[in-house]
């Protein structure tokens, strides 16, 4: 081999171990051409895209080759058309403009129509359902669970007819927009164990759960008396107040005390006692007016009311 090559191909001139030489074969022609093409590509690229740094700035491509026109919304809601050089962010504006154009028809309707009219418009409800499902999965499902069924000890069920803060469109809208934060004070300092046991039995009696009737009678007095003043928040009938989100204690729906899972009467009493002892401050529903747009909140309101079922 070395014999043939000696004549046709040059070597680098290095010699190791007497006769070990290195050939300098020319680069293949296709490779050379590929190399030149990358140069041409680069020059074309400079025309279209931001490329060379110059001092504190950079070339932005040649106007005309790479102009991007989009519609911007100013702080005070005005629409302005603007043209600039291509970059990720101007291209993003174009993409968002496209999306807005696609959805505008529907969102405009959602924003301008009354809740009742939206819910009667079958075509619009298709949009509400698909957009609502996505919004709900991204933002609400981690707390209210995938189908909105909630989780005892954490977040309320949105699919039933039972609403702590009210189930009309406007009430649901207020909940989503501004968030909610249910608060019940701890009674460990105010009441003794016997009183708390009596109250727990009374609370259980309200929803016909197993309870000790004698203790419940004493609890009734405490509930409506000034010492514990439960009635102040839960109402004299124990049905709760929508302004406070105080639970309706007369139905069989529980959020914090897991009564349905408790097997014995004793467990049930203890669960309620726990709530009265420690109070409640963990029911925090975030406000969405910072993250979601007004029309998205309105859409979610319809979705929660009509599609999850249970609006009232």
């Amino acid at each position, binding site marked *: 081999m070395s014999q043939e090559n000696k004549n046709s191909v040059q070597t680098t001139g290095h010699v190791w171990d007497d006769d070990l030489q290195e050939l300098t074969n020319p680069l293949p022609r296709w490779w050379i051409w590929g190399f030149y093409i990358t140069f041409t590509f680069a020059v074309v690229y400079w025309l279209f895209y931001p490329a060379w740094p110059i*001092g504190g700035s950079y070339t932005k491509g040649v106007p005309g080759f790479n102009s991007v026109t989009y519609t911007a919304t100013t702080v005070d809601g005005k629409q302005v058309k603007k043209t600039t050089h291509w970059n*990720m962010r101007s291209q*993003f504006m174009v993409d968002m403009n496209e999306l807005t154009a696609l959805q505008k028809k529907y969102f405009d309707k959602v924003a301008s129509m009354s809740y009742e009219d939206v819910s009667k418009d079958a075509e619009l409800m298709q949009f509400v359902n698909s957009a609502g499902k996505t919004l709900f999965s991204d933002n609400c499902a981690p707390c209210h669970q995938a189908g909105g069924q909630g989780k005892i000890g954490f977040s309320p069920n949105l699919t039933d007819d039972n609403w702590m803060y009210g189930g009309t469109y406007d009430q649901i809208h207020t909940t989503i927009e501004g968030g909610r934060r249910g608060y019940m004070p701890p009674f460990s300092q105010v009441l003794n164990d016997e009183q708390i046991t009596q109250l727990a039995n009374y609370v259980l009696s309200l929803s016909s759960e197993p309870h000790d009737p004698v203790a419940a009678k004493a609890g009734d007095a405490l509930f409506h008396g000034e010492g514990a003043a439960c009635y102040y928040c839960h109402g004299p009938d124990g049905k709760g107040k929508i302004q406070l989100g105080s639970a309706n204690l007369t139905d069989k729906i529980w959020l914090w005390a897991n009564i349905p899972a408790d097997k014995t009467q004793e467990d049930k009493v203890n669960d309620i006692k726990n709530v009265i002892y420690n109070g409640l401050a963990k029911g925090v529903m975030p406000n969405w007016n910072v993250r979601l747009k007004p029309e998205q909140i309105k859409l979610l309101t319809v979705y929660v009311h009509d599609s999850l079922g249970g609006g009232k």
Partner: protein
Amino acid sequence: MKHDLIERNLGILLVLTMFAISAGGLVEVIPLFFIKETVEKVDGVRPYSPLELRGRDIYVREGCYLCHSQMIRPFRDEALRYGHYSLAAESKYDHPFQWGSKRTGPDLARVGGKYSNEWHTQHLTAPRSLVPQSVMPNYPWLVKTPLDYSDIQLRMKALRKTGVPYSLTQAEYDRNVKDFGPDVAKSLHIPDAEKNLIAQAQLGNYDGNPANISEMDALVSYLQMLGTLVDFKKYDDDYFVKFR
């Protein structure tokens, strides 16, 4: 012959090889330090408070960045899911930044305010109790471990060396009052770090247990401020285009 010189001299070969392979990177990175528009002009960005800083360090220690990015790219799908694209300005005090590129879980750049403290505490302790299909690991020790903040001043001093405006002297403090307002300036003052850390943890009670300051307090305080510093309602929706 020069070729010969390089091939027979390992030191020169090494230096020249390193130069050749870093050239591509340097050419792209260095100009960004000089281009005025790299970091956007925007109000609200501030360094972490001492408690948030400890939370950030726990985030790094636990390797959360291996599954979570903190970089919302300017794409339509990301904007719809996560919110406004991330700004360079928003991580200008991050050393090291937590942009990341691996998304086993969702991006966290704007997770602040999305959930309640209760949610974060329960989710970090047992993710599957809230999101049944989650593959995120349990971090049950965070609520149980008291936060070690004995070295918080050293941590802030180290960052100060990299240019983060934590203050040591009165002059630096006064400058921070001017730049960030009195409330933030107080939280950036290194000599008061422990006091500020305790105050924020007690006021926020992030882990639901007011009795002690746990690692969970620090981590949740950090998560709850992510991406909340800039008020985008104050800017036209294309304001940040001009910085590119």
